[in-house]
């Protein structure tokens, strides 16, 4: 029931903003409505603590013998931590919106609040069936929201690619369901067969929201900061939640060591690119790749709580950095404390990040630790580069005072999760790796001005014509698609041409003889 109250607060606020926008386009207190709605939702999540774990089951689909699962939600520790992180991010986006050049933008806030409400539902989804439904809602909502902004045909193509990439993840989750059905078990998170575990990881990775690398509004920084951060982060969080639901030891595949190595290299790539990114917004996809890979690696090592920890850190620490747009020195120093969220030191939110249950992952740990160090060093470097930030001259005076509250909300929530409310709180964890990563990151920071290779690369729009390896991959796939298309056209032309009926009858005869041969 309390789950619904939080979700209702978010969605009702979004609905109110929408109605106000339609009926009273000049309404002056839209920001206040959004902020109060977000704040109430944030407070309501703490009420969950009094009743956890609590579940909510919606009416099952009929006929019951066809649909074995019903949409069910479970508010447990991990779901709570994710929900709190999501709502904090949403609240921070609304609060920091006061200094954006596009203020006020009630439609953007309504969109973010809607996505956050769906994100909360995804965080507490208790079975894959429910998660599939919520993911689909998020995909449709994101598609509508993004298409609203896009004018350039090339950018609208990116929206479609992003949508297709996320739907592929959903399809893989559905396939995991089929694998489970084939082994005669009902597909629940707790009882998923080991063969299905790998598909769960793949589904989550595909939905991480990394493809395409850049969202369709590169030139408008105000959109990228607030709204873009919301889209990217909520999308990533709702995919990572799946990793936290895979029970320990439920990923059984001979491909596991290779997959873990692949994920480690992905983390290294993300960390390296993040460290060398010209600024935090251009580095954001690499932040997602790096942090997402650490979460996936934790899940592969049988550590769902660790995966949740990296997921929350991705949202909270990332949110702090991406929403910071003002050159406020004391706030930049405060942001440094946010590095603790990423450190995996005892009593931090990521303290459980390096725990490993069963199996042996020694071959991947060094790469992952180095990746964490690069992500941490990149975080500190981007947080300190306030000279590149330009203040918005048109911002209201009260806005300058309100804006830091949004960042502080993220910081405090990140610190709070290290101590309170879920399975990852008050943990010492495998602190050795945390200390090594922290020391390595300090070393990287010391070396950055001294080694040219560690210096930031140019911004991506400076060299738009140089194709990346990803572009090359797209080209190969597109070429393959066109070849298959030609084949399909040829076949269709034969069947639909003047002699089509004869060809059809010939094919029919061939099929009949084929099946007659196979019949016992």
């Amino acid at each position, binding site marked *: 029931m309390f789950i619904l109250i939080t979700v209702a607060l978010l969605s009702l606020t979004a609905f109110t903003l929408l109605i106000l926008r339609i009926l009273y386009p000049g309404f002056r207190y839209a920001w206040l409505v959004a902020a109060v709605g977000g704040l109430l939702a944030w407070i309501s999540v703490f009420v969950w603590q009094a009743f956890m774990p609590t579940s909510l089951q919606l009416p099952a689909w009929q006929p019951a013998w066809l649909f074995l699962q019903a949409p069910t939600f479970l508010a447990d520790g991990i779901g709570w931590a994710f929900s709190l992180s999501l709502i904090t991010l949403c609240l921070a986006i609304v609060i920091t919106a006061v200094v954006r050049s596009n203020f006020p933008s009630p439609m953007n806030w309504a969109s973010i609040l809607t996505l956050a409400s769906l994100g909360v539902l995804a965080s507490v989804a208790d079975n894959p069936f429910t998660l599939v439904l919520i993911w689909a809602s998020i995909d449709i909502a994101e598609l509508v929201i993004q298409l609203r902004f896009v004018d350039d*045909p090339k950018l609208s193509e990116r929206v*479609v690619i992003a949508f297709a990439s996320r739907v592929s993840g959903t399809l893989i989750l559905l396939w995991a369901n089929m694998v489970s059905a*084939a082994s005669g078990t009902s597909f629940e998170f707790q009882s998923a067969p080991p063969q299905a575990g790998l598909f769960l990881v793949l589904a989550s990775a595909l939905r991480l929201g990394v493809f395409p690398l850049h969202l369709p509004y590169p030139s408008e920084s105000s959109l990228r900061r607030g709204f873009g951060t919301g889209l990217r982060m909520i999308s990533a969080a709702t995919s990572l939640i799946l990793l936290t639901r895979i029970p320990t030891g439920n990923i059984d595949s001979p491909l596991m060591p290779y997959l873990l190595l692949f994920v480690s290299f992905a983390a290294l790539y993300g960390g390296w690119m993040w460290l060398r990114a010209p600024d935090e917004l251009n580095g954001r996809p690499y932040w997602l790749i790096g942090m997402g890979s650490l979460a996936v690696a934790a899940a592969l090592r049988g550590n769902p709580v660790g995966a949740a920890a990296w997921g929350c850190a991705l949202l909270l620490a990332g949110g702090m950095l991406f929403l910071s747009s003002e050159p406020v020195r004391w706030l930049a120093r405060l942001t440094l404390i946010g590095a603790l969220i990423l450190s995996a030191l005892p009593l931090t939110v990521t303290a459980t990040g390096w725990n490993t249950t069963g199996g042996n992952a020694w071959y991947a740990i060094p790469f992952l630790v180095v990746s964490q160090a690069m992500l941490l060093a990149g975080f500190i470097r981007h947080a300190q580069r306030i000279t590149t930030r330009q203040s918005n001259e048109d911002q209201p005076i009260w806005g300058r005072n309100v804006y830091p509250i949004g960042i502080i909300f993220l910081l405090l929530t990140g610190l709070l999760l290290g101590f309170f409310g879920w399975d990852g709180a008050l943990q010492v964890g495998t602190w050795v790796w945390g200390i090594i990563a922290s020391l390595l990151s300090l070393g990287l920071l010391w070396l950055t001005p001294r080694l040219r290779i560690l210096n930031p690369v140019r911004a991506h729009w400076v060299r738009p014509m140089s194709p990346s390896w990803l572009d090359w991959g797209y080209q190969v796939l597109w070429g393959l698609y066109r070849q298959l298309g030609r084949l399909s056209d040829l076949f269709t032309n034969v*069947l*639909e041409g003047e002699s089509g009926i004869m060809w059809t009858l010939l*094919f029919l005869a061939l*099929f009949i003889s084929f099946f007659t041969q196979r019949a016992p």
Partner: protein
Amino acid sequence: MNAPIIWIVFPAAFAILLLPLRNQRALSILGGGLAVALALIAQFVPIEVAMLIGPLSLKIDSTLSVLGRALIIQPTEGPLLALIYGAASLWFFGAEASKTAPRIVPLGLIITALMVASIAVQPFLFAALFIEMAVLLSIPLLTSLYSPPGRGVIRFLIYQTLAMPFILLAGWLLVGVEASPGDLALAAQSATMLGLGFAFLLAIFPLYNWVPMLMEESPPFIAGFLLWLLPTITIIFGAGFIDHYSWLRSSPQLIVALRSAGLLMIVTGGLFAAFQRHLGRIMAYGVIAETGFAILALSLDSRLGIPILFLLIPARALSLAVWSLSLTIIKEHTETMRFRESRGILRIAPFAATGILLATLSTAAFPLLAGFPAKLALWEGLSRASLTAALWMGVGIVGLLISAFRSLAVVSMAEEYTSWEPRESLMQMLMLGLGVIGLFLLGVFPQTIQFFLFNLPAMFEHLGR
């Protein structure tokens, strides 16, 4: 009162009276209203049960004898009639928005009545004649007096007509099988004839090339109506055959044949859809895949397969109604439905573009949409039987999804700084809006239509029990 008179003779006679009428709205309301009334009567008024209304005793007989033949509508077939006429009403109400009411309402009512007659007639041999009559009546619906019929229409007529001799021959041979059940050669011959007949009727691979051609050259709304009605009734007619003959029901080859045919249609339909550059042709391949899903459902254990089959029917009807209406509206604003001409149509016809996208996604089993519940159940059931078969079904779904993404990319790809200027009429927006709501309603709460579907398997004596 007589059931065949109410659900066959009366709608056909009423339709003849509507023929001279030219008012789009009046036709739409009259045709849709009659279809809804017939659906409600079928659902709520029992057949062969005496009812007391005040001093009057009312009973609907199930049988009507004509020239020594019988039209029989069993009491258990009431929900099926409700489903057929309920779904037909979607097209009749949407006829005004598509501006095709003077053609689709009267002729559509007659075709629906003839297809109902094909299920009701005894002996079943005569069903082939009713189906052929429906096919012949479809020709004036698809063509115009002022232009010669296209190749798609001619092929439609040829392929559907070719089915008749096979069904008639099968019927003749089946009498022999009933007389001597041990004659395996005769049984094999009759099964082959029956299979070929249904292969032509249902446009099973590779006999479906007329479907995309028809969608390319005919009014999409009318083609959509025929592509919903004819395969749906034919599948139920086919299921009736399987139910009637125990040797057919228990034959392992039948399961293999149904599964192979269904998968072939899903895979080829999905893959061909993925490579099309014409919105109408994508719908055609979607329809082919939908028929594949229905055939695949018949290949499962009937206790699972028959409820899935009936769950597929309303989803298919609603998806196709939304899809074909959307295409009709888009055709109003573009020269052809080719990708080249449909670029950026989202900004001119947002409801129609959304309708196309959601209908394609629904066919591709996208969660939250009408097609998802039935296809999820089908996919799970198939996985339990064979994971390889489930993988092939997945391939078909991927193909359909790719076609949906490509359509989305095309309709949303407007020239830079093109403003949003919806040009759809209020009626078109209303009908499509309701259709889209329906797609989501059936996808999120499939239990809402269980009231209509629950008793449907009872129309079969053996299947689904």
